[in-house]
């Protein structure tokens, strides 16, 4: 295997970054679309079927096109998809209002903090252990070089992930404060308390996989949790998984923990005063954060890029025909499928249960989740000691 020069490795890293960004910007709009459709079907309606109010112009063109395609039965489900394009167009074209009394610089920087901290987490997420793909020989400049499954598969990956993810709360708090308005301020205060509280059980629940796998590197952790244990990490760590998922819901401000933006109480919470693409950044950041939480959950607890749970992988492998042999190997596709399943869970929960009250949210974290997470950590340590 040729050793890449510095320039080559920079180019390869850029390619990886591009891939991750593409992944994020494909998954996020699809999640938004899925949210509309799945929520719609949960509630016995159709979800989005067209771009709102459009017979003329771009939206009209999209509507007519999709209506034509939608005559094909399978495609009829996707009639609403131009709505995503229209949404983005709307966000970009809308007037960007900054309230007169707002702190302009902080108001400007807050959505950027949210967005950046959400995306940067992916640096330490490894989609597949080892080589993701190799550039073909004829490829200019980087031909024949391997591209690894994570951008920076660093030894302190988990620390990086937790550290960067917790910066995201600044975006929300600063947005609430800089708007200089009452509802956003309340939203910002709520999120400060909530996200700081939930950071604790979240981190503790992730310590259990660290103990079990004796590593902080994302790729290694996910490999050892998936392969080293007799099952996926899910079975011995079912408690940890549930705690993590609950905290993940809270960290991403999704129902039942969507305190900072509780629509029916605080209008729109911290982003009440935001419009245009600044609001779009918050919106994007929320969905990217969901993806991040789903990626970590699937990496640590659902066996990451490995397909089969419960130690079945070894049993099945010999019987797989040659063309299906990649079922036996870890593959990024499986990782993505698990992420998508968890994203679906988010929507499912949103359609099912009501919202906690603010003080109840806090008591859930401090009274239940933290003791449970500590107990889970103790359990993991015992398993590690004696097994």
């Amino acid at each position: 295997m040729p050793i890449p020069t510095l320039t080559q490795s920079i180019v390869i890293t850029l390619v990886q970054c591009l891939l991750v960004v593409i992944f994020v910007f494909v998954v996020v709009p699809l999640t938004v679309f899925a949210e509309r459709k799945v929520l719609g079907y949960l509630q016995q309606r159709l979800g989005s079927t067209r771009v709102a109010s459009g017979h003329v112009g771009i939206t009209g063109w999209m509507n007519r096109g999709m209506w034509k395609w939608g005559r094909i039965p399978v495609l009829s489900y996707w009639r609403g998809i131009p709505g995503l394009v229209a949404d983005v167009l709307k966000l970009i074209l809308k007037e960007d209002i900054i309230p007169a009394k707002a702190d302009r610089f902080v108001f400007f920087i807050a959505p950027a903090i949210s967005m950046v901290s959400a995306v940067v987490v992916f640096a330490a997420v490894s989609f597949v252990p080892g080589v993701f793909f190799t550039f073909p020989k004829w490829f200019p400049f980087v031909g024949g070089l391997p591209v690894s499954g994570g951008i920076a598969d660093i030894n302190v990956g988990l620390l990086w992930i937790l550290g960067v993810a917790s910066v995201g709360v600044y975006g929300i708090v600063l947005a609430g404060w800089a708007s200089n308005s009452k509802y956003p301020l309340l939203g910002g205060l709520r999120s400060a308390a909530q996200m700081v509280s939930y950071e604790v059980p979240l981190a503790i629940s992730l310590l259990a996989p660290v103990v079990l796998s004796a590593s902080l590197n994302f790729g290694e952790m996910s490999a050892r949790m998936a392969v080293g244990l007799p099952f996926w990490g899910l079975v011995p760590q079912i408690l940890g998984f549930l705690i993590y998922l609950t905290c993940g819901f809270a960290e991403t401000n999704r129902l039942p923990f969507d305190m900072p933006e509780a629509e029916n109480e605080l209008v729109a919470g911290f982003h009440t005063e935001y419009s245009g693409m600044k609001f779009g950044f918050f919106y994007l950041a929320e969905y990217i954060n969901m993806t991040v939480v789903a990626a970590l959950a699937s990496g640590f607890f659902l066996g990451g890029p490995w397909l089969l749970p419960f130690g079945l992988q070894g049993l099945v492998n010999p019987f797989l025909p040659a063309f299906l042999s990649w079922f036996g190997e870890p593959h990024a596709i499986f990782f993505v499928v698990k992420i998508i399943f968890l994203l679906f869970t988010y929507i499912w929960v949103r359609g099912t249960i009501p919202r906690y009250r603010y003080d109840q949210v806090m008591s859930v974290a401090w009274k239940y989740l933290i003791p449970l997470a500590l107990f889970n950590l103790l359990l993991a340590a015992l398993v590690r000691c004696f097994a």
Partner: protein
Amino acid sequence: MFKNEEMEINLGPQHPSTHGVLRVKLRLDGETITHCRPMIGYLHRGVEKICENQTFFQGQVWTDRMDYCSAVANNLGWAEANEKLFGITVPRRAQYIRTMLNEFNRLASHLIWLATHALDIGAMTVFLYAFREREDILDMNEAFCGSRLTTTAFRIGGLREDLPPGFEKLVKKFLAKFPTCLEEYENLLSENRIWKKRTIGVAKLSAEDAIALGVTGPVLRAAGVPYDIRKAFPYAAYAEMDFEVPTKTEADTYARYLVRMEEMRQSARIIQQCMDGMPEGPVMAKIPKILKAEVNEVYHATEAPKGELGYYLVGEKGSGNPYRFHVRAPGFINLQSLPKMAEGGLIADIVAAIGTLDIVLGEIDR
């Protein structure tokens, strides 16, 4: 060094969960409400004064537009108050049909309450499930009188028309599926831990306070007072109906939820009885084309879905329109109890309190 300041905040008039244009002035200590005053009047149209300048027949149209979620109940109150004023006896068949439609309307109103209340607390799916059933009721309204929301369903002296052909089938179909629908809502809410946490012990209003504030309807019954005008002072055909008045003693939001859910069951029972015992005969009494009043006054109270709906009418000799008209709107009186319910609670509780009072601003502001 540190200042401790209370924050004053306006909940509304444009706010997703104030059910219209209610404005509530709040003073907050952190998230705790220390002071709460509802400000009303954003939807004031002067319905009472307008009705004083219209004939008795025309006034009915305005009652639709007070509590627009339960127009039929409003129509019933108006029609009966006028019948009392003029001493008209309504045919028995008309009474039965009125009772049935009124109960359908109670279902529709309670479904809206359930939908919006659940949405306020964050349970989004119940909202759409409840609207699905309400749609069927509105379809029945449409079949009966041509309009869905502002029905003007009844006339002074009876009904404009008999039930349309095929109406019975609609009712049967609805009654067959409605109990399962109720179960569906209850599966989503009744035993849901979050729903219970958000409603049990929230927005309490004791029986003494409720009576002192003049609160009526499910809010009063959830405090343990079994006061239902359908039983206490029967009107329409309620004297012949067999139904129970559900009460609870907890006097909190959850108790009100249970009371209203049980009321829906009882409404379905009443509808069934109306269908079974529907008498034959005319639906309209013989009344003159133009009603001229004597010097006379009536107060007629009916049990609207939200509480006691009273119409006070004063007639003037030889005049074709009321001399004075006043509405005792249940929502208006019930809203008085909002500060009592919300003060000391959290900001999320006031949303639950507004939801559980089941207010409609069209009726409060009139």
